């Protein structure tokens, strides 16, 4: 199937910087393999390659936080983009996040692959350019947009209490 695709955009990267991506569990595993095949400069690692499946969010973010170069998280469930509260919760993570728009899972698998590959050069370009920790959205019509900078969220409170009322 993929031999029939025009993959010029995937083979010809504008940026020569080596990028390290980390795909969460909602990002299709075969798509990780396809991206690794077509972009020799970047490395995309699926969560299950390094951490047991179902690992808690804080734990995998802590683990990838120690990697060098710092990985960019690829997320497959774009509903997070609609929740400012969820985005604010990511503020502590020292990395960029790239989420597929929430319509991506509703695309037939082949269309999903084509759209992501078409956007791949833009994704790599955008995350290379952006210095501040940012959440990006891969648009349904292709391409990427800056969604929110994590520094925009002003945090006044502390971490939630454990639920115990204390003495």
């Amino acid at each position, binding site marked *: 199937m993929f031999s029939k695709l025009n993959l010029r955009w995937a083979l010809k990267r504008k940026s020569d910087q080596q990028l390290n991506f980390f795909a969460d569990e*909602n990002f299709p595993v075969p798509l990780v393999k396809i991206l690794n095949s077509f972009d020799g400069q970047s490395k995309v690692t699926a969560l299950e390659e390094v951490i047991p499946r*179902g*690992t808690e969010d804080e734990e995998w973010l802590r683990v990838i936080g120690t990697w060098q170069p710092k990985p960019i998280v690829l997320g497959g469930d774009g509903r997070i983009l609609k929740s*400012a*509260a969820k985005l604010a919760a990511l503020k502590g993570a020292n990395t960029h996040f790239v989420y597929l728009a929430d319509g991506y*899972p509703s695309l037939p698998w082949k269309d999903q692959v084509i759209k992501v590959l078409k956007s791949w050069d833009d994704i790599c370009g955008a995350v290379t350019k952006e210095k501040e920790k940012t959440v990006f959205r891969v648009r349904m019509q292709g391409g990427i947009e800056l969604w929110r900078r994590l520094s925009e969220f002003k945090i006044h409170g502390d971490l*939630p*209490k454990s639920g115990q009322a*204390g003495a």
Partner: protein
Amino acid sequence: MNLQHDVWIRAKASNIRVAFLVRRRLEIEKMKAPVIPALGTGIYHIADVSRYAHIPHTTARSWFKSGILLNADYCSIDDDYSVSFHDLIDAMIAHQFRKYGVAMKTVRLAYQMLQTQLNTFHPFCHRDLYTNGKRILIREAKNIKAAIFRDAINNQQFFDEMRSHLTKVSYSDSTLLAKWLNPWPGVVINPSVAMGEPVLSGTGVTTFVVRNAYNANRKNADLVASLYGLSVQQVEFAVGFEKEIRPAA
């Protein structure tokens, strides 16, 4: 908390023991300030609470937004109002009382009394409610002068139904509070995984993604299973659960 409500609670506190409990609860209330949403505690919109706890949307919204029954753990971010996993479980149990006709004010009073009894902001999430719920609520009924509350807790069907909900909850051994919820076979709502979205058990794959992929790929469960590293049965679990909570979608 508004002044009128305080006055009402104090008026209800017709004996010394209740007055003590109310005073303690007011102290606790002061300690509980809304905080920024964080990883590990679950983040849910009111619509999610409505779906996962089977509460009408307008009811859930009025309970949290007006603070008429429950106060959310989180402050709103950019006008985006969210609640925590413990808020979700509290709402689920509060809904049981309401279903049996217990007045809102009485449920709130019971909730507040239990906050002090069980020493937690989220008494309906406490393991004791599952293990000793009947005993605890019967004890509280003596303090709460509301016949309908006593009637509800004297109704075995009420406890059976509440227990059927609480059976789906797993509790933490350290905090004794709800840790995750099994709303459907093979599906878990764990606040620490995928920010509390329903996921397939043992994975971080959300049921939403699986169901949409299933529908988009001509209901080819084998293909979807291979895309997300699942079994066909897990795909069926996700589809079944999503059909239950989003029947119109």
